[in-house]
C-alpha cells in the first residue's frame, strides 16, 4: 500500500505550461521573439526551459531558463527572417512536462517605436513654440522679460573686487560642455570677463573639464579683445585643474584661501562639492553669486551664498546679460511652454476627475 503511494508521488503527472505563443517583439531593432505561456498548474516546479527549433533544422535548442513565476521569455538570439518554433518545458525535481509547439514566427526590426509617440508629439510642440518666439524676437526687438533679481548683484560684486584690488574667481561647474548649465555658465563668464577686462581686475577661471576649459579660454580671450584689452589676457586666467570632483574642490578651496578673491561666481552644474566651495568662499569673506540647475545642491547655495540663481533663472540670466534678442525670444518660448504644461496638468486633472477617463494612458 505504502509502496503504491510512493510510486504515485515519485511519478506525478506534471502539468505542462499551456497557451504557449510566440510573436515578434514590437518596437525593437529586430532579432527578438517574445514567448509567452500560462503557468503550469503545479506549484512544485523549479522553472521553465524554453526551447527553439529553426525551420530548416529538426533539432531543438535549449535557449534558457525562466523562474517558476515567469510567464514570458525573450529570445534575443533570433535571426531576422528565419522561421522558428518554440516550446516551453516545466521542470521539477521529479520530472519535466513539455508544452505544445507554437506556430512558426519570424522576428523583424521596426523603423519607428510607437511607444515614443507622446515624446514625438511633445518634442514637436515644444520645438514649434520656441522657434515661433525666436522668430518673433528677430522682428520685434522689444520682447519683455522681467529683471532677474540677483543680476544687479553682478555689477555690484565686480565693482567691489575692483575697489578692493582683488581678484574675481569664476567656477563654471564641474560638468562637461554637453550640460546646458555649463553652456549658460560660459555665456555668463563671457559677460563677466568683459567687465573684469574693462575694470582691470584679475580673473581666475579653474576648470574641471578639458573641453570646457578650451571653450572658456576662447570666450575669455574674445571678451578681453571686445573690451579693448587684448593685452590684459594671459595664459594664467583660464586653466584646467582635474576632472576628479574632490581633487578639484581641494584645489579651488586652496585658491580661495590663498588668493582671497573679493568675488566668487559658482555657476554651472555642481554636485556634492557645492557646499565645500561655497562655505570656503564665505569664510574668506568673498561676495558669492551662485547659479545652478542642480536641484539637490540649490539648498546649499541658498544658505551659503549671497545671491543664487535658481534653476531656470540661470538660463534666463545668461540670456538677459547678453541682451541678445534671439536668446530672449527663447526664454519667452520657454515661458509659453510652461503655460502649456500647466494647462495640460490642470486640463488632464479636470477631465480625469469629472469623467473618470483613464487620462494617463493617453499622456
Amino acid at each position, binding site marked *: 500500500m505504502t509502496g503504491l503511494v510512493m510510486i504515485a508521488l515519485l511519478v506525478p503527472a506534471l502539468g505542462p505550461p499551456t497557451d504557449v505563443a510566440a510573436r515578434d517583439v514590437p518596437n525593437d531593432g529586430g532579432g527578438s521573439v517574445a514567448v509567452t505561456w500560462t503557468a503550469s498548474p503545479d506549484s512544485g516546479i523549479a522553472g521553465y526551459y524554453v526551447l527553439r527549433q529553426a525551420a530548416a533544422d529538426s533539432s531543438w535548442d535549449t535557449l534558457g531558463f525562466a523562474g517558476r513565476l515567469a510567464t514570458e521569455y525573450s529570445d534575443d538570439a533570433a535571426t531576422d527572417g528565419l522561421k522558428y518554433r518554440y516550446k516551453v518545458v516545466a521542470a521539477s525535481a521529479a520530472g519535466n512536462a513539455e508544452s505544445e509547439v507554437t506556430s512558426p514566427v519570424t522576428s523583424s*526590426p521596426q523603423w519607428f517605436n510607437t511607444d515614443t509617440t507622446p515624446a514625438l508629439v511633445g518634442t514637436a510642440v515644444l520645438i514649434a513654440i520656441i522657434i515661433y518666439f*525666436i522668430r518673433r524676437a528677430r522682428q520685434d526687438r522689444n520682447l519683455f522679460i522681467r529683471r532677474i533679481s540677483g543680476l544687479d548683484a553682478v555689477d555690484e560684486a565686480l565693482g567691489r573686487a575692483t575697489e578692493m584690488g582683488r581678484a574675481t574667481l569664476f567656477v563654471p561647474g564641474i560638468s562637461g560642455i554637453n550640460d*546646458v548649465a555649463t553652456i549658460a555658465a560660459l555665456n555668463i563668464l563671457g559677460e563677466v570677463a568683459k567687465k573684469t577686462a574693462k575694470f582691470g581686475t584679475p580673473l581666475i577661471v579653474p576648470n574641471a573639464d578639458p573641453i570646457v576649459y578650451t571653450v572658456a579660454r576662447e570666450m575669455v580671450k574674445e571678451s578681453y*579683445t571686445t573690451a579693448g584689452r587684448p593685452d590684459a589676457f594671459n595664459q594664467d586666467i583660464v586653466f584646467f585643474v582635474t576632472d576628479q570632483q*574632490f*581633487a578639484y574642490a581641494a584645489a579651488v578651496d586652496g585658491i580661495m584661501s590663498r588668493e582671497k578673491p573679493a568675488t566668487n561666481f559658482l555657476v554651472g552644474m555642481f554636485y556634492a562639492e557645492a557646499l565645500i566651495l561655497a562655505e570656503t568662499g564665505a569664510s574668506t569673506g568673498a561676495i558669492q553669486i551662485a547659479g545652478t540647475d542642480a536641484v539637490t545642491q540649490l539648498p546649499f547655495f541658498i544658505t551659503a551664498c549671497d545671491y543664487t540663481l535658481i*534653476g531656470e533663472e540661470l538660463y534666463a540670466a545668461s540670456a538677459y546679460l547678453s541682451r541678445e534678442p534671439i536668446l530672449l525670444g*527663447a526664454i519667452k518660448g520657454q515661458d509659453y511652454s510652461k503655460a502649456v504644461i500647466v494647462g495640460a496638468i490642470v486640463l488632464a486633472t479636470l477631465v480625469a476627475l469629472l469623467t473618470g477617463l483613464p487620462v494617463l494612458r493617453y499622456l
Partner: protein
Amino acid sequence: MQRRIPLILVLVTGIFGALTFFIPHRTVQAADESMRNDVQRIITAFSLVLGVGSIVQHHLLKIRRKAEHWQYSYVTIAAIAISAIIGVFGGLDPARPGVLPTHIGSFSFHIQTLFTNMLVPLGATMFSLLAFFMASAAYRAFRARTVEATLLLAAAFILMLGAVPLGRMIFGPLPSFAEWILAVPNTAAKRGILFGVQLGIFATSLKIVLGIERGWLGGGGK
C-alpha cells in the same frame, strides 16, 4: 568656413542624436552605439591631453615666475608624471601586470594601491568636510529674518530632529511629519523647478543644434 563647418556638424550630429531615440531599427541603433562608445569616448580621451597640458603649463609658469608658493608646483608635476608612468606602464589590473614592475618584495606601488591608499582617503576626507560646513552654514544662514527664511529653517529643523531618537521622544509623530514634508511640499517644489529646468535644457539644446546658440565657438554670437 571656420564657423560654418562646426555649425553644420552640430546640426547633423544633433539631428542624428535626436532621431535615434525614435528609431529602434538595428542599423540605426548600431550606429548610435558606435557614436557613444567609439566616437564620444575616444574624442573625450584626447581632450584630456589638452587638460593635462594646461595644468602642467600652469605650474611650469608658476615655477618660472617664482610666483607665491611656487615650490608646491613641483609636487603636482611630479605626482602627475610618477602616477601616469606607474599607471600606463604598470597596468591597471593587478592580475595583468604591464612592463613596469609594481612592487619591491611585498611592498606594492601599483596604481590601484595608490588609488586605494591615497586618492580614496583624500577624496573621502574632502567629502567629509561637508559635515563641518553644513554645521557652519546652518549656524550663519538659518536665521528667522523673513517668512521665507523661517520656513527654510523650520523645515530643516524638523528633518534633523526627525532623524534622531530624541525627535520621537519630544513629539511622537515628528518622524512621520518629517517624511510628509519630504514627500509632499519638497516633491512639489522640486518638480516645479525641474519643469523649468527641463524646458531650459530643451530650448538651449535646440538653439545649439540650430546654430543659434554659438557661445561655444568661443566668443560672441557673430
